[in-house]
């Protein structure tokens, strides 16, 4: 292997080197160096360690090939939002001035084949920003190359469709790199296996957003054809030679330890084996059906200790109010808190004081978690999985095994979306597969069954909020106070490792511990948008996860981020309370919001949704509102949100049959202003999906649990939205290229639904329903009260 020459060319802080001349092909490969270390040091280190990224080759951001094709690599895993296959290509194509179609391959997630790590969230905010900057460096390097090749001053050159021209000469990128192995080393900072991965640093010149021609167009997702024609290799399709099928017999409760593992019936399951590690009981067999049968037999015969350390769902909110420890964890204040709320409330012409409640919800992927692990005799471990943070998983598996991350490789495949659950590295089955593979010396495929997935995965945490609002005679809010209470929600620990008693990072504690970013601190996650309100006090109170400290397994009810983590829990009470205040003030709920803000983008979104939804401008409740009777009453509700630089406004129209307690959403309209729209078609589809998940949260979703564990175990006990519930959906996309940035966060569509629906319920019935979900029994109790 050739070594990099010492005399690289400086490109705005990046370094361009020629490694060698080659007879065929040729490429420009864009690698990285951690800030403060030389290219040579980095390369030497990579060469010495067999599995870590070779920054000169496998771990590159892009490869520009002699045939003018370009390969993109990203550590971030696309979960169906299509970002990596559409938006990322568009961002790179735009910055490099090449056609979208030139990007022929996207390598995603594999820890030995991608550069930057990071979680599957903030795709545009973090991953997109990295790619944009990396591409900007590359563009400058290509211009430099062209300048010396064509002998034309760089300032005279321009690029269109991957062809550089100037001074009467022209050359394609492919021809520029032909016959050479070039390497561009760009500066980065960060920790590869941390939640955020690496960040590209420096300030290369970037294309002005006003010149964009590729960003803003609707390109289709290149992966869709393979997914609809059964050509995609899903994680469920991974088969390794000599592989065994595994099932795990999870403990009887979330705090039970193993007393004795059951004895295998060798007559019925002649080829099965049982593996016990700590309290982890695994069953493997050459065929999946034998593994399933044997696991059921073992489960029936295995003895566990008893544990009852949870309040049970019926007591959840009482327990959160009266028993949870909200005092130990430092209180968070929003940066928008200002003024003096107490006197302002005292002198307000009217006030509202109310409490809101959200249940535990499950990520509930359509397929239960599955992984294949291959622990080899040389100490290396390969994990084939579907995970939102492969590098973090790699770090955790290395920690569990007490080995170096160089010995761990994670490979990523398509799989069922799970909406944030594994963005700290733990989807569920990976560590269990590793433990079984290591014990047996053979590759093992662990597939969780449906109850495993609902009962042993993390969940979105519950929350309560106390909101007080005061306003004056003109309907101007003079004071807003919000006290938000929510248990910790970023528990990244590997659950199989916990059950087996193997090392994991610490559980969320009052401040982040070494090796963990999770803490019990409940930050303010819902940006305040009503800038005219003079007195604002938003506080976040956090606590430990339910039952976690008391559980002998340190498990209890572990929580994890889901879609709009924390923000859903804070936006729902805020927006419903503001709709209630508008009703008490006798002012139309959209008009009431418009009076509290000068933010042009928020105002634009509110007006757009008002127009598109057929909103009736009038105070709530509806003139025909009723809290009893067998005929449907209808209502309208509004909610707004600012998330990741994107403004949202949502209107839902619902009908309620008071006597039966049924709530139906008839129409969902949403206006979104992300600044620059990257891909309108994909944005629309992602929003529609989010909208329907939001309906599901509003109408159906609530994890049930008793004192020992989760009692939601299948789609009957954890129902979600079905086709019958689909309303008319209207998506209004407001393109504002002059903003000069593309906002992210399209998952916000789910969070907006719950408060808009609850606002519409208030409008239809004149009664506020301050707890999710709006199931019949709860609705009836609200209406009778």
């Amino acid at each position, binding site marked *: 292997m050739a070594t990099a020459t010492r005399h690289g060319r400086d490109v705005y802080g990046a370094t361009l080197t020629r490694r060698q001349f080659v007879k065929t092909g040729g490429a420009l490969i864009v690698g990285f160096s951690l800030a403060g270390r030389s290219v040579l040091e980095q390369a030497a280190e990579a060469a010495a360690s067999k599995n870590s990224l070779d920054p000169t080759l496998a771990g590159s951001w892009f490869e520009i090939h002699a045939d003018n094709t370009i390969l993109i690599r990203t550590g971030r895993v696309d*979960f*169906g*939002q*299509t970002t990596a296959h559409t938006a990322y290509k568009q961002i790179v194509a735009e910055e490099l001035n090449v056609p979208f179609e030139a990007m022929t391959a996207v390598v995603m997630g594999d820890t030995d084949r991608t550069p930057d790590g990071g979680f599957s969230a903030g795709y545009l905010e973090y991953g997109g920003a990295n790619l944009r900057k990396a591409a900007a460096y590359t563009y400058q390097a290509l211009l430099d190359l062209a300048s010396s090749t064509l002998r034309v001053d760089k300032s005279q050159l321009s690029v269109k469709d991957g062809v550089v021209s100037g001074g009467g000469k022209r050359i394609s990128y492919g021809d520029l790199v032909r016959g050479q192995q070039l390497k561009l080393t760009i500066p980065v900072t960060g920790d590869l296996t941390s939640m955020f991965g690496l960040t590209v640093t420096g300030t290369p010149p970037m294309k002005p957003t006003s010149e964009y021609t590729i960003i803003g167009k609707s390109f*289709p*997702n290149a*992966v*869709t*054809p393979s*997914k*609809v*024609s*059964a050509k*995609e*290799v*899903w994680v*469920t*399709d991974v*088969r390794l030679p000599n592989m065994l099928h595994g099932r795990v017999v999870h403990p009887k409760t979330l705090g039970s330890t193993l007393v004795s593992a059951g004895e295998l019936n060798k007559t019925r399951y002649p080829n099965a084996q049982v593996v016990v590690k700590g309290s982890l009981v695994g069953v493997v067999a050459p*065929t*999946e*059906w034998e593994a399933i049968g044997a696991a059921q037999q073992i489960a029936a015969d295995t003895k566990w200790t008893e544990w009852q350390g949870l309040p049970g769902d019926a007591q959840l909110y009482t327990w959160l109010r009266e028993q949870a420890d909200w005092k130990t964890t430092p209180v968070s204040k929003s940066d928008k808190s200002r003024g003096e709320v107490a006197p302002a409330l005292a002198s307000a012409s009217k006030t509202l004081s109310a409490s809101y409640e959200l249940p535990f919800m499950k990520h*509930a*992927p*359509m*397929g*239960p978690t*599955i992984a294949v692990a291959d622990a080899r005799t040389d100490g290396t471990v390969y994990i084939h999985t579907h995970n939102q943070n492969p590098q973090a998983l790699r770090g955790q598996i290395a920690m569990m095994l007490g080995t170096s991350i160089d010995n761990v490789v994670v490979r990523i495949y*398509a*799989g*069922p*979306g799970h*909406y944030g659950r594994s963005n700290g590295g733990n989807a569920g089955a990976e560590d269990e597969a590793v433990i079984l593979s290591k014990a047996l010396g053979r590759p093992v495929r662990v*597939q969780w*069954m*449906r109850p495993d997935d609902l009962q042993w995965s993390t969940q979105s945490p519950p929350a309560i909020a106390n909101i007080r609002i005061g306003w004056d005679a003109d309907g101007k809010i003079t004071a807003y106070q919000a006290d938000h209470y929510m248990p910790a929600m970023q528990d990244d620990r590997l659950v199989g490792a916990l059950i087996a008693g193997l090392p994991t990072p610490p559980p969320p504690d009052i401040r982040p511990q070494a090796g963990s970013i999770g803490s019990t601190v409940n930050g303010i996650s819902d940006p305040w948008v009503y800038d005219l309100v003079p007195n604002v006090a938003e506080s976040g109170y956090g606590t430990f996860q339910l039952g976690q400290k008391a559980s002998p397994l340190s498990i209890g009810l572990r929580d994890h981020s889901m879609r709009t983590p924390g923000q859903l829990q804070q936006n729902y009470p805020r927006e419903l309370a503001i709709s209630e205040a508008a009703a008490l003030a006798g002012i139309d709920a959209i008009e009431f919001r418009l009076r509290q803000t000068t933010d042009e983008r928020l105002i634009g979104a509110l007006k757009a949704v008002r127009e598109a939804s057929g909103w009736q401008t009038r105070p709530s409740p509806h003139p025909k509102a009723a809290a009893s009777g067998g005929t449907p009453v209808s209502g309208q509700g509004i909610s707004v949100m600012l998330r990741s630089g994107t403004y949202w406004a949502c209107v839902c129209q619902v009908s309620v049959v008071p006597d039966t307690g049924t709530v139906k959403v008839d129409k969902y309209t949403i206006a979104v202003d992300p600044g620059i729209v990257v891909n309108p*078609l*994909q944005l629309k*589809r*992602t929003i*529609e*999906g*989010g*909208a*329907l*998940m939001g309906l*599901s949260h509003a109408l159906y979703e609530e994890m049930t649990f008793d004192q020992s564990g989760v009692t939601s175990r*299948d*789609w*009957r006990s954890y129902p*979600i*939205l*079905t*086709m*019958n519930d*689909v309303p008319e*959906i209207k998506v209004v996309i407001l393109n504002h290229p002059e903003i000069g940035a593309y906002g992210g966060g399209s998952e916000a569509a789910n969070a907006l639904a719950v408060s808009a629906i609850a606002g519409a319920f208030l409008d239809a019935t004149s009664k506020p329903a301050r707890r999710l979900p709006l199931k019949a029994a709860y609705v009836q109790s609200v209406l009778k009260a």
Partner: protein
Amino acid sequence: MAGITLTVNGTRREVQAPGDTPLLYVLRNDLELSGPQFGCGLSQCGACSVLVDGKEARSCVLPVSRVAGKEVTTLEGLPARWAGQQALPASEADPALHPVQQAWIDEQVPQCGFCQNGMMIKATELLDEVPAPTVAQIKDAFMSGASPHLCRCGSYSAILDAVQRASILMAKGR
């Protein structure tokens, strides 16, 4: 363990499996087909759906012995099935995609895509019986069978668009 003969996507296959093995595991593990997915194993979601003699069935709970001698069609078999229905000579049939699959691409239906096998199987069954369904009929179809067909990513409204598009493509004989 007796051999069981079944017809999958037009080909006779012999498998060695206990007769009570759910068809899903035979399709995935023995025949290495990747269309049907394991979603619940409880006949509650539709991720594992296949057509058995043209009717949508949940392969996760269907013992393989029960399909002996029957015609099983998986997602992989939809293009050939369509070509057969059109009675097209092989040279004229587009072997790549069934119109339902084409419509799923045109409308960019999948988010994660994990449920879409069952959704396309259900759409195919529906369009065979009702070539131009109303929205209400489409919704009914996805609510019918052993359970409603579930999509966690909320692609239902894209599915409604795609079924209508597939209906148009099929009417054109494409």
